[in-house]
């Protein structure tokens, strides 16, 4: 459809082009359209995200060799979001990133939301990618319960994105974490692909070696909320998943496994799932966890938790079969249901939350409720939260998966150098959030001797987004050329200090089952290649400046 409109545009302009050809004596110019406008590449400001900014500079440099006039503009995040997310017709190029989260262990969330045409207007598809074939396969994989068949589709989708170069993928950064190996038994930490050792399984499993039984970890961001119906930032979710249980958990293998559910059984048509609740579960206030609580936790979000609503929309009905068993009926088969719903929704106590929700005014929802007891049923109990300083959780010894540690203490430390210092002076014994240069951490660990550093590839990735609404970025050949001109090896080494792997897919190599092997190598690169792709597609360099193909005019000249 897009090709057609462009064809029309070309036809309508051909008269003008013919006139231009006759008027001009130089054939090189005669074949060219308008010069391509000056382009602005938006990035986070240098101070806020030096890696991203440097990558942007390197990209702009390479593109100048192609004859483009590119400027990098650093912006604070809210301003960047405002420009890119809320004014979707106004920008050309932006640096962007997708963060890794446990629920993103299933490729569906990113595969579907980022590129499906239904999310173009307001959702995650902010680049404006519309491809009917892609839509169809993306919908199909959702309804395919067979893993092998689904894998074929996920591969196909990765191929389409590679072919169209909707994004210029750059890298999957390596996450670095560290802990004091004299305090924690290294063999009891658990590495979860894409998330590293900072995960639910490490926190519930790790065993102290001596008298220090409190885990002291760090967050480099301020915290905003601890609420089972609301995630206000990345760090919140580390806390909520420890306090509130879920029916299933994403296991260290990246797949959902039963947790508060004893068993999870699917019907043959994949339209309903029967769940048996684990025996003897208790809320932190001593009340039993009942099937009513489960129903409440999956129905309350429809009206009261906008953030979780999309994940329960696919539930048609929940039937309580007896005091331990429930059946979820779905509106349509959904392969990602376990990951994106059963392993995502927090189980919240009905007796605490129902009266609070009932007291809300119109237009308010569970996000505006400050419920300070924070009663859950999870392996950790909420103790207290001191603003801008720390959150303290106590191990729940009654839990069937009771943690080995005594307390889990998250300190807010904004200063990266101080974070490293604290780790070495044992004020911290688990480095859970490190935004500094990984090589400094490794040096510090070598000097210290007690610290063990663990690196792992992120589920998330860094990329450059083209605005497909605005020519020339609607042309896949143009995007392929621009993407080919990017030297990812240089970016990986210079901007990320080598702590990253090259990317060319939304599905990270950390998700080894779903990632299409070798897709990063399928992308041929080089400035010469880029030039030849452009030439083939009809773009012309004249006077050092890249021009549109014959007959195409500049609609967005500034």
């Amino acid at each position, binding site marked *: 459809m897009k090709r057609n409109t462009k064809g029309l545009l070309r036809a309508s302009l051909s008269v003008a082009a013919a006139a231009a050809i006759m008027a001009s004596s130089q054939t090189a110019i005669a074949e060219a359209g308008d010069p391509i406008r000056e382009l602005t590449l938006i990035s986070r400001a240098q101070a806020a995200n030096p890696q991203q900014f440097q990558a942007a500079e390197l990209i702009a440099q390479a593109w100048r060799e192609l004859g483009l006039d590119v400027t990098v503009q650093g912006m604070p995040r809210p301003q960047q979001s405002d420009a890119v997310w809320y004014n979707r017709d106004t920008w050309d190029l932006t640096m962007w990133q997708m963060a890794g989260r446990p629920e993103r262990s299933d490729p569906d969330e990113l595969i579907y939301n980022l590129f499906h045409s239904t999310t173009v207007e307001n*959702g995650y598809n902010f680049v404006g990618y519309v491809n009917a074939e892609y839509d169809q396969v993306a919908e199909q994989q959702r309804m395919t319960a067979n893993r092998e068949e689904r894998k074929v589709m996920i591969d196909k989708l990765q191929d389409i994105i590679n072919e169209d170069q909707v994004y210029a993928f750059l890298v999957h950064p390596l996450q670095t974490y560290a802990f004091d190996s004299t305090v924690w038994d290294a063999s009891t930490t658990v590495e979860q692909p894409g998330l590293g050792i900072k995960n639910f399984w490490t926190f519930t499993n790790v065993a102290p070696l001596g008298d220090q039984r409190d885990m*002291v970890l760090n967050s480099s961001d301020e915290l905003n909320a601890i609420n089972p119906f609301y995630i206000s930032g990345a760090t919140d979710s580390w806390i909520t998943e420890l306090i509130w249980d879920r029916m299933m958990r994403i296991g260290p293998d990246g797949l959902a496994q039963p947790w508060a559910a004893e068993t999870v059984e699917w019907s043959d048509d994949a339209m309903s799932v029967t769940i048996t609740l684990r025996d003897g579960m208790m809320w932190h206030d001593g009340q039993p966890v009942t099937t009513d609580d489960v129903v409440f936790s999956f129905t309350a979000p429809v009206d009261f938790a906008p*953030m979780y609503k999309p994940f329960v929309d696919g539930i048609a009905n929940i039937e309580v079969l007896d005091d331990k068993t429930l059946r979820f009926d779905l509106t349509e088969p959904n392969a990602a249901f376990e990951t994106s719903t059963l392993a995502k929704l927090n189980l919240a106590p009905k007796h605490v939350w129902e009266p609070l929700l009932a007291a809300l005014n119109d237009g308010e929802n569970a996000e505006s409720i400050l419920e300070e007891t924070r009663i859950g049923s999870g392996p950790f109990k909420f103790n207290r939260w001191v603003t801008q300083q720390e959150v303290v959780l106590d191990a729940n010894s009654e839990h069937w998966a009771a943690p080995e540690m005594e307390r889990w*203490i998250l300190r807010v430390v904004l200063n990266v150098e*101080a974070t490293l210092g604290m780790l070495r002076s044992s004020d911290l014994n688990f480095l859970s959030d490190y935004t500094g240069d990984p090589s400094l951490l490794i040096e510090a660990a070598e000097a210290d001797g007690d610290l063990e550093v663990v690196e792992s590839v992120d589920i998330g990735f860094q990329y450059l987004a083209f605005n497909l609404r605005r020519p020339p970025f609607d042309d896949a050949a143009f995007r392929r050329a621009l993407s080919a001109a990017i030297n990812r090896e240089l970016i990986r080494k210079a901007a990320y200090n080598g702590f990253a792997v090259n990317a060319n897919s939304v599905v990270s190599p950390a998700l080894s089952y779903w990632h299409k092997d070798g897709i990063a190598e399928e992308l041929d690169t080089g400035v010469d290649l880029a030039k030849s792709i452009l030439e083939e597609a009809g773009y012309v360099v004249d006077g050092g400046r890249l021009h549109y193909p014959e007959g195409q005019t500049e609609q967005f000249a500034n």
Partner: protein
Amino acid sequence: MVYFLKRFAQMIFVLWTVATILFFMFRTMPGTPLAAFIDNTTTEEQQQALIEQFGLDKSLGEQYWLFLTNLMQGDLGQSFFFKKPVVEVVMEVFPNSVILTLSSLLVAYIFGIIAGAYLAWRRGSWVEGFGIPLVLTTRAAPEFWLGMVFLAYFSFHLGWLPSGGANSSGAEFSSEWARITSWDFLSHLALPAITLAIYLQGLPLLLMRSNMLNVLQEEFITMARMKGLSTWAIVIRHAARNALLPVATAFALGIGGAVGGNVVVETVFSWPGIGRLLVNAVAASDYPLAQGAFLMITAVLVVMNFIADITYHLLDPRVRVAARG
């Protein structure tokens, strides 16, 4: 009394002006408060819900009127981010900020006054030649650098003092009072307070010194010398007391200024305080919280200014007479 009322009315006017400027300033800034949520929120429905929840669907005039009437009742609104009343959020860290500011100001001013008076007395000596450049250098040293050096040495190297926060991890206290009087709190306070004091001491020291130099030229000092009074009596009883007035004003203003100006020290030492709160609120376009925190700082500044004026009025007969005339 009339003077007092007049000054009071002026103070209210200043506060109203600041509140109004703040209100419109934050709303004309680029960026929307929704931007802070978009990583998690997707649909338009959800965005609309947020807009309504924040009251951003009302007209600017309506929002302003609501803001003013609520303000009169001491209600600064609800923080978009923390989902708590602004007053509650601010008050959680306000004691930390006030204590850090007051303790460092006290150290800075006591040291500054004594050292300033001494340097004035020793004018032209080697002490002055050495002292003034030293004061200027420490005054000019960036706070974050000084803070990092102190952290690296006293905390990480020597291990004498804790490295960050206002309390040890997981420390529990029976009350807020017990917390801020505990050894744990005071040891955490030491490094940030000293860093800030070093930064702040330059002003009172140099001010005191130049005032002293002026006062020492005065005839009553010559008179005192002629009477054969001791050096001690001349410097402390006669000269210093007269030179103190402008320093007292600077102290009062310093309290207001320093309450809001501690972002750097708060960040370096992970000290929970109002400066960090403010920076976050601005970055996240949390209008109510940013307004509230700024207003609190303004209020402290204006009230301190007011108190300084009134004390001046009481302390110095000349001002009293001028005000009447």
